[in-house]
């Protein structure tokens, strides 16, 4: 209802589309800003890492893993014992030094300290051969991590090359290459690993004696060979599948139609879209390689003595586990911690970089 003397600027009819302008005001700058839906430009990596940082479990795992890595790099410089040598007190051998408890001294060490000598404590005690257990666990962690890392690297390189060749070429080449993958994939991998490690240990053991490779140990070399022979297939399948599906996308067609070179298409469009899958499965490969190594150590096919790995330490500790359970507990806890953190980081990376894969 309207009062008669106060006429509105426009005569408004019922149901008309006319708008009463006096009811509106101009938007201020602030109002305009509140409607802005754009966010600052972000790259693929920045986005991913932002998501990753929100994941508390994964961030804690990163911190724990960094601490472990710092420890295996720094600690050997501070501990005056060697992982491969029996402890000597003042240059003399000591019979009571074997199987000490954590922070315990042997008789001769005690005498030496009473005389005013200064010794580094055995943080984790000593092993049955009188070697400092702390330094062995540290070096063992180093060996296990290196094995895991390089094994995954081998898998990545072979799988990436094989998978992308098969995916790019397609057609008959792809068919033949994938049949080979099918057969290797259906081989029972653990049994083949045991068999090949055993055979390689028996065959190359003598040939590499005295060379630098002997120091690395036949167990480790054969593990790398076996990973290079068998474990790359799932990576190759994954990468081939990725490339095949990405190749069909409209943006690749668009890039091609606008005259982008093959190299540019691969670099700018195909790789960024499958890199997350590659990173995630490589990250998750490391713990599985550490597991495999520890299983081989259990069978006596792991790293060569006196070099320790977490698996071989835990396996050796089984003999005296009733009397010295901590010799089993220390490597067992660290191996579980390493595998746990790596798994959580892998899961975190998957959630952050590839929401499609999230479960």
């Amino acid at each position, binding site marked *: 209802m309207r009062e008669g003397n106060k006429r509105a600027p426009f005569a408004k009819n019922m149901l008309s589309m006319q708008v009463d302008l006096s009811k509106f005001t101009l938007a201020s700058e602030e109002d305009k800003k509140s409607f802005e839906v754009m966010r600052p430009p972000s790259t693929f990596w920045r986005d991913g890492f932002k998501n990753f940082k929100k994941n508390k479990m994964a961030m804690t795992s990163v911190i724990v893993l960094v601490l472990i890595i710092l420890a295996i790099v720094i600690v050997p410089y501070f501990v005056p014992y060697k992982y491969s040598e029996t402890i000597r007190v003042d240059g003399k051998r000591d019979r009571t030094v074997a199987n000490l408890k954590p922070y315990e001294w042997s008789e001769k060490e005690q005498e030496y300290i009473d005389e005013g000598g200064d010794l580094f404590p055995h943080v984790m005690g000593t092993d049955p051969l009188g070697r400092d257990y702390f330094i062995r666990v540290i070096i063992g962690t180093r060996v296990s991590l290196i094995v895991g890392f390089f094994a995954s690297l081998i898998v990545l390189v072979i799988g990436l090359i094989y998978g992308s060749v098969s995916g790019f070429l397609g057609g008959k080449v792809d068919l033949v290459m994938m049949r080979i993958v099918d057969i290797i994939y*259906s081989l029972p991998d653990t*049994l083949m690993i045991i*068999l090949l490690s055993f*055979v390689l240990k*028996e065959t190359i053991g003598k040939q590499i004696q005295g060379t630098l490779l002997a120091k690395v140990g036949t167990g480790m070399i054969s593990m790398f060979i076996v990973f290079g022979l068998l474990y790359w297939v799932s990576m190759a399948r994954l990468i081939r599948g990725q490339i095949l599906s990405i190749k069909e996308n409209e943006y690749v067609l668009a890039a091609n139609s606008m005259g982008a070179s093959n190299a540019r298409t691969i670099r700018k469009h195909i790789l960024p879209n499958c890199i997350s899958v590659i990173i995630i499965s490589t990250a998750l490969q490391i713990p599985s390689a550490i597991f495999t190594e520890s299983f081989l150590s259990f069978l006596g096919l792991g790293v060569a003595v006196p070099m320790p790995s977490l698996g071989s330490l*835990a396996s050796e500790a089984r003999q005296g586990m009733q009397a010295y359970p901590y010799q*089993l507990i220390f490597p067992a806890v660290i191996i*579980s911690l390493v595998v746990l953190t790596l*798994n959580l980081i892998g899961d975190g990376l998957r959630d952050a970089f590839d929401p499609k894969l999230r479960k």
Partner: protein
Amino acid sequence: MWRYFLKRILLAIATVFVVIAITFFTMNAIPGGPFDKEKASDPATIKALTERYDLDKPLGEQFTIYLSRMMKGDLGISMRNGREIIKTINRKFAVSAKIGGYSIIASFAIGITLGVIAALKRNKLTDRVIIFFTTLFQSVPGFVMATLVLLVFALKLGWFPVYNELRPNYFLAVLSLSLYPAAYITRLTKSSMLDVMADDYIRTARSKGVSPGKVVFKHALRNAVLPIITYLGPMVAYTLTGSMVVETVFTMPGLGLEFVQSILNRDYTMIMGTTIFLASLMVIMTLISDLIYKMVDPRITFE
């Protein structure tokens, strides 16, 4: 469908053949004959033995002889004790099959139950506790787990006897063998269950007024369990390699312990025979579980 089955069966046969070939030729690549010992034997004896086992023939011919004997169920004799390998496998596998069978049943029962609970109580305390322990159990290597179980439950607490042949107690061995697969199945069931619970037909069933219990067990669980069947194949493979670990840790006289010992003793023929036996078993079980999956789930398309 039959074309797909035929294709899978042919692939399985090809795989078993490849396994046999790899095993035979790599084991033969190890330098030194099987009769080389620390003490030099009489040359005439060695010659007789070499002829007896056809070792004087070319490698290709030896392979066909090995294959044709294997078809008749003859895997040769052990180099250490001279017993027939197939008989040893028959005898020892009974123990492993028992442990493995119990473990597979236990893992599926525990895993599916916990997975369903975790999915229904999503993000509640129960779910978190279940997921924490499954993550933990998946981070401990099998032999460490078995050793810790033995140490805690048999040696320290004394709740269970250490294994002896007169009064066999499988509980601890089955327990340590089941922890990892049960944890895996729990997570698998949980995610599969969550997927299914978000589907339209569940909402339809609910809105029709079907009771919650019926929705979970009849509509959701039946569909959620299907993908878990595919884990049966890898599970058998895990159980067979896992049995090597638990049988060694608990000193149970199964095929797993026999295999580990044949590696330590360098009993070439035994390693060969056992590898071929176990590998064929794994390939066959994977095939069966895949075929069952395709048969029970009509939604799967056949390539």
